[in-house]
C-alpha cells in the first residue's frame, strides 16, 4: 500500500527505535502530523513532547546528545529551521553534537496552511551552518535510508521530509551513499539535477522532452551537503547544459549549491534554476501551487528550452 513520506518516516523511526535504545525523539506538539507519534506509542519513555517550543526542543536535544543519546528533533521544517536555528547553530554546528533535525512538511507540501507553513528557504539556511549535513528525500525507500543513515552517522544533520505522497523511484532496500547522487535517466542534451518531489517532475519533463527529440539526463541530488560535485561536473561535461529543480527559493538551495560546484570546477555551461523566484507562494491545492509558482514539469521543460538556447 502506498504511504506518504511522513508515514514512511514515522515507520522508519519506529523500526530504528526498536533496534537502538539510544534513540530519543522530541516533538513540539505536532507528533500527529510529523508521525513521530508512532515512536511515542511504542516507546513513551523515550519520547518528549515539549509543547510548542521549537527552540527549547532543539536545545534540549543538545543535552540528550551530550549524554550519549541520538536525539531526533521533530516539527514542521519551517519552524525547525527558524525557531530552532540558534540552538542548531550553537550545538549541532559549532559543538558538533549528533543532533538529528527532521524537517516535516518540506517545500509547499503543507499547501493549504499557506506561506507561513511552507518551508522554502530551509535548505539555504541549514546548508550555511558549518559541518551540518543536509538531505532532501525523494521517495519512500530514500526516506527509510535517510533515517537509518541519521542513526548510523554521528554527524549533525538536517533532513527535509514531506507531508505528501511521492512516487517511488527506488526499490525497497535500495542502497544509497552519503555524498553520491543517483543517476535516474541518462541523456546527452541537458541534465536536470533535482531533489525531493521535483525528481518526479524532472523525470516527467524528460519524457516530454524526449518526445520532442531532446535527450535529458536526470539526477536525484538527495545529498545536498555533502554535495556530489563529481556528479554535477559529469553532468556538465556530458550534456553542456544544466537545469536545477527544487521546492525552494532559487537562492542558496540546491540550485545555489550546484552553481557553486560548477564554478569551482571550472565548468562553463548555461544553468537555469527552477524554484520559487525569490517570493512566497500562497495557500491552495498542492499541485496547483506547484504549477502556478513554476515548480513542476512544465516549468522544467520551459527551463530546459531556455537553457539549450544559451548552449554553445
Amino acid at each position, binding site marked *: 500500500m502506498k504511504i506518504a513520506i511522513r508515514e514512511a518516516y514515522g515507520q522508519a523511526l519506529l523500526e530504528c527505535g526498536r533496534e537502538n535504545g539510544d534513540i*530519543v525523539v522530541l516533538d513540539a506538539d505536532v507528533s500527529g502530523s510529523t508521525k513521530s507519534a508512532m515512536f511515542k506509542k511504542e516507546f513513551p*519513555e*523515550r519520547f*518528549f513532547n*515539549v*509543547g510548542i*517550543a521549537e*527552540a*527549547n*526542543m*532543539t*536545545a*534540549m*536535544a*543538545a*543535552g*540528550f*546528545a*551530550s*549524554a*550519549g*543519546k541520538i*536525539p531526533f528533533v521533530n516539527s514542521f521544517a519551517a519552524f525547525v529551521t527558524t525557531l530552532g536555528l*540558534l*540552538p542548531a*547553530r*550553537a*550545538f549541532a554546528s*559549532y*559543538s*558538533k*553534537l549528533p543532533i538529528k533535525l527532521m524537517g516535516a512538511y518540506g517545500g509547499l507540501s503543507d499547501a493549504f496552511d499557506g506561506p507561513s507553513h511552507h518551508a522554502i528557504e530551509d535548505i539555504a539556511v541549514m546548508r550555511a551552518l558549518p559541518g551540518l549535513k543536509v538531505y532532501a528525500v525523494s521517495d519512500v525507500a530514500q526516506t527509510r535510508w535517510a533515517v537509518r543513515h541519521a542513526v548510523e552517522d554521528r554527524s549533525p544533520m538536517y533532513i527535509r521530509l514531506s507531508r505528501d505522497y511521492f512516487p517511488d523511484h527506488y526499490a525497497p532496500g535500495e542502497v544509497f551513499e552519503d555524498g553520491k547522487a543517483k543517476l535516474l535517466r541518462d541523456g546527452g542534451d541537458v541534465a536536470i539535477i533535482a531533489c525531493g518531489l521535483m525528481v518526479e517532475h524532472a523525470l516527467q519533463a524528460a519524457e516530454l522532452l524526449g518526445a520532442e527529440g531532446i535527450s535529458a539526463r536526470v539526477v536525484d541530488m538527495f545529498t545536498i551537503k555533502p554535495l556530489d560535485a563529481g556528479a554535477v561536473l559529469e553532468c556538465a561535461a556530458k550534456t553542456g547544459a544544466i537545469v536545477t529543480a527544487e521546492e525552494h527559493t532559487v537562492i542558496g538551495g540546491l540550485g545555489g549549491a550546484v552553481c557553486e560546484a560548477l564554478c569551482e570546477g571550472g565548468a562553463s555551461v548555461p544553468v537555469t534554476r527552477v524554484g520559487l523566484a525569490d517570493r512566497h507562494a500562497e495557500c491552495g491545492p498542492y499541485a496547483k501551487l506547484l504549477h502556478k509558482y513554476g515548480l513542476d514539469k512544465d516549468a522544467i521543460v520551459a527551463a530546459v528550452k531556455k537553457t539549450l538556447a544559451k548552449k554553445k
Partner: protein
Amino acid sequence: MAISAGTSAGISAEDRRKLEKLCQKFRRKLIDVLHAKQTGHPGGSLSVCEILVSLYFHQANVDSGNPGDPNRDRIILSKGHAAPMLYLALAEKGFFPYGEIDTLRDFETRLQGHPSIKDTPGVELSTGPLGLGLSAGLGMALALRLDRSPARVYVVLGDGEINEGTVWEAAMAAAKFKADGLTAILDWNRVQLDGATDDVMPSGDLGAKFVAFGWNTIHCDGHDIGAICRACDEAAAAKGRPSIVLAHTVKGKGVSFMEGKSAWHGSPIKDADYEIARRELDEGVGA
C-alpha cells in the same frame, strides 16, 4: 526576601574557609588576566565566583581524572560570558594547567572567548548565545534519568539572560517532566550590559514566577559559600520537581568601583583601575 537558614549538612567550617581562599585567588587572577588581555567580562565573572567554587569544589562530583564518567555531575555555565571564572575553576580542578589561563581569548587558544565543548577540557556545553543552557541542562537531566544515573545537572543562569524566552520554555518543560535531577542557580546580580535589570527588563518577583512555573525555589546569599551549599543540598532533596537557587549576588563583587556597575559588564581594565583592584583584592576588601 527570605534567606534560607538551611537544614542540611552543607559544608564544614574548615572546607568553607579553604574555598573562600580559593575565591580570593581566583578573583586576583581574573583581574590580572582581564587587565593583561584588555578583553573579557569582569562584572559577571566576579559575581558568579562563589557559585562556581561551591559547585566545583564541594557540591558536584566532577573529576578531571575521569572526565568521561557517565555518572559525573554536569555543570553548565549558561551565562557563558563569565567564561574566565569557569576556566579558573576547571584549571584548579586539573582539567588543564593553571598557567593556561594566561592564554584567555588568545589566537589559537583552547580558552575561547565563550566556553566551547570542542576546545576546552571539562566544559560540558558550549554557551555564549544566552538562554539555551537551561534547555540543554534539562535534556541532560532527562537523558541521565533514562540511564538511571544518580548524576545531577547544575545550570548557572544570569539574570539578564532570563530575558530570553527559551529560559521560560525550559522552565515549563522541566516542571512537566518533573526533572528533579536539575538544579538551576541564578546569579542574581541585578545588572546587565545596558544597565540595571530593573531598567532594561524588570524581572519582578522571580521567586514567585518560578513557583508559579512549578519549581522548588530557594533563596540564598550568592557570596556565602555555606549558604550556596546548603541551598544545593535542599535542591537535591526536593523530589518530583526541578529546583532553582536564587543566589543574591553583587555584580563586580570584590572590587569596590566595579560593584553594581553595568559599565564593568565587559569593559577593559585600565592600568590605574587595575592597581586599585589588585590592592583591594590583596587586602581582602569585600572578599
